[in-house]
């Protein structure tokens, strides 16, 4: 193998990057297609009963949606291959010149997941205080004590606000009897 010139190398890398960039949107097209297939399979499994035999059974609309999604998937794939690309959304606190910081995104997603799974056991106050604390730290807060204090105040305040103000009982979990 001969070493390619730097020029060709950067050109190659650029082309590869361009392709990879396009490919992430092809993934979206593939996801649309997968959803379309899931709907189609699910619809095919709807049992045919006498009540379905009316004018328009429960299969009609899902079938239309599945076809529509499938067509969108194909059209999107074609558009991406022809060089079309989406524009990511901008906003007040968004700096699109940075690449997506995946540890933060997955960290936050993980926190919400853990919160959902442990809420019944831990109770709302502990769970959501930890959710706030963890999210604030993941998002770059370095005031380790303050963030925790705010999280606890927010959680306790919301708990009592809901119970006393709105009459909605949030689960107390581990703190049952204390709160």
């Amino acid at each position, binding site marked *: 193998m001969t070493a390619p010139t730097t020029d060709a190398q950067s050109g190659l890398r650029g082309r590869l990057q361009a392709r990879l960039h396009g490919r992430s949107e092809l993934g979206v097209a593939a996801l649309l297609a997968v959803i379309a297939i899931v709907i189609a399979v699910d619809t095919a499994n*709807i049992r045919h009963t006498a009540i379905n035999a009316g004018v328009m059974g429960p299969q009609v609309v899902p079938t239309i*949606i599945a076809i529509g999604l499938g067509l969108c998937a194909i059209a999107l794939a074609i558009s991406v291959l022809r060089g079309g690309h989406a524009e990511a959304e901008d*906003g007040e606190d968004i700096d699109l010149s940075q690449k997506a*910081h995946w540890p933060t*995104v997955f960290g936050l997603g993980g926190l919400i*997941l853990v919160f959902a799974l442990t809420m019944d056991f831990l109770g709302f106050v502990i769970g959501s205080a930890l959710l706030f604390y963890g999210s604030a730290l993941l998002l770059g*807060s370095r005031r380790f004590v303050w963030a925790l204090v705010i999280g606890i105040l927010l959680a306790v305040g919301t708990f009592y606000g809901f119970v006393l103000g709105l009459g909605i009982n949030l689960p107390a979990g581990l703190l049952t009897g204390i709160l």
Partner: protein
Amino acid sequence: MDNLTLLMEGFGNALTLQNLLFALIGVLLGTAVGVLPGIGPAMTVALLLPLTYALDVTGSLIMFAGIYYGGMYGGSTTSILLNTPGESSSVVTALEGNKMAKAGRGAQALATAAIGSFVAGTLATGALVLVAPFVVAVAIGLGAPSYFALMVFAFVAVSTVLGSSRIRGLASLFIGLTIGLVGLDATTGQARLTFGQPLLSGGIDVVVIAVALFAIGEALWIAAHLRHGTPATIPVGVPWMGKDDWKRSWKPWLRGTVIGFPFGAIPAGGAEIPTFLSYVAEKKLSKHPEQFGHGAIEGVAGPEAANNASAAGTLVPLLTLGLPTTATAAVMIAAFNQYGIHPGPLLFQTEPVLVWTLIASLFIGNTLLLALNLPLAPLWAKLLRIPRPYLYAGILFFATLGAYAAGMQTFNILILLLLGALGYMARRFGFPVLPIIVGAILGPEMERQLRRALQISAGDPAALLSEPLAVVVYTVIVLFLVVPPVIKALRQRFGRGAGPTDGPPEDQFDAFGTQTSDGSARVIRAVRPSRRGN
């Protein structure tokens, strides 16, 4: 006049001490949350929805009216003092408003926005009072084919007219329809897309969908690209206007109202097109066109009025036809549905007190907003400096709480996370969020109307064209879909030169840019070329 009597009765109901308190809380919370950067009106309404769970219908709708207008006003404060707004309807406000603030005229910009919002909101709500009974009178005679056609129209409008990419808009719509499919089929009781999970058989709560798409999706998206350091905000005193500012503002307010209301009222709404049109109109009519781009007060007054007028206009299809055409309206439908109330022409007959109390509280909310926000503006400006980690951690906190409280199910939080990931993807890949939520809400209703239309005709699809309105609506849809591409093709063939700006042809055609999460078009791209031209 009959509806005036009803409106007076509505005022009588809304003006009790308790209801005024609800309106006050709604306006304060709506503004406070709406001012927070990264939180648009739709997210404000979705996040504050749980607060109304414990109230009775009237109280919660009154509070909602306050939150609705408060959230919108908060957004314009953000865009004036911070620039680069996250919500689409105040993009145009930011163009001149932020320039004014930078030039030390922030107080005047906030004042013309607040007073203009009040003027436009009040006039447009008045127009709603006049127009709604007529629409109801027509709508009451409409059958299933017409309703089906109107829904198709709303779908086409939200997914293809506003966005830059029709494919992505339609894909969003179909994803929304898919979400709406989950659960037991209303007529036959057959499970669809429940994957054997009994908690899914009731469908996915609209509140969970809204909070996931607007709050979780947005928070995750911002977290991925969080700007380091807080963007500079401009400190501001109590808003006030000089004589000259009044003179330059009142005409744009009125013109903005006239432009905004009809755009909100047709079920192709959204505040983006009217705010943009108002901006262009004011620039053309201004005696100081050279100030545009450097902080012209007309460029704040007109679009802000148009924004609020179109928000009031949105309530026409929402209340009379049950058609939500903006993200905020979609969340409001969710709020209605919680009480088993389904907006539509029948609502005016079955719940006249409720409807007119709601409309009366819109007037009250608007007035409270003006009375509160002029003195409180410096306080709101301080909210912009909230440390971002706490802000977004707080959004996640309240989003999960809202989803949980929607059914007291931790399962809802899992759905929230899943749909939040969808919201993130939508932002990353330029898919508009509005068609997703409108599809999810209107999908089941559309299926019901389609079924009804076909049942009457014993399955003959020609029945869909059996009502004159349906035929008209389909014709308009075809024009919507066919005309713009034809114009584009013609332009490309015969070259540019068709427009006054010197931008490339796509920029002119694409005047409304991409859709943002509020489902609204971003106009900044279209405005920039013409600014370059100055």
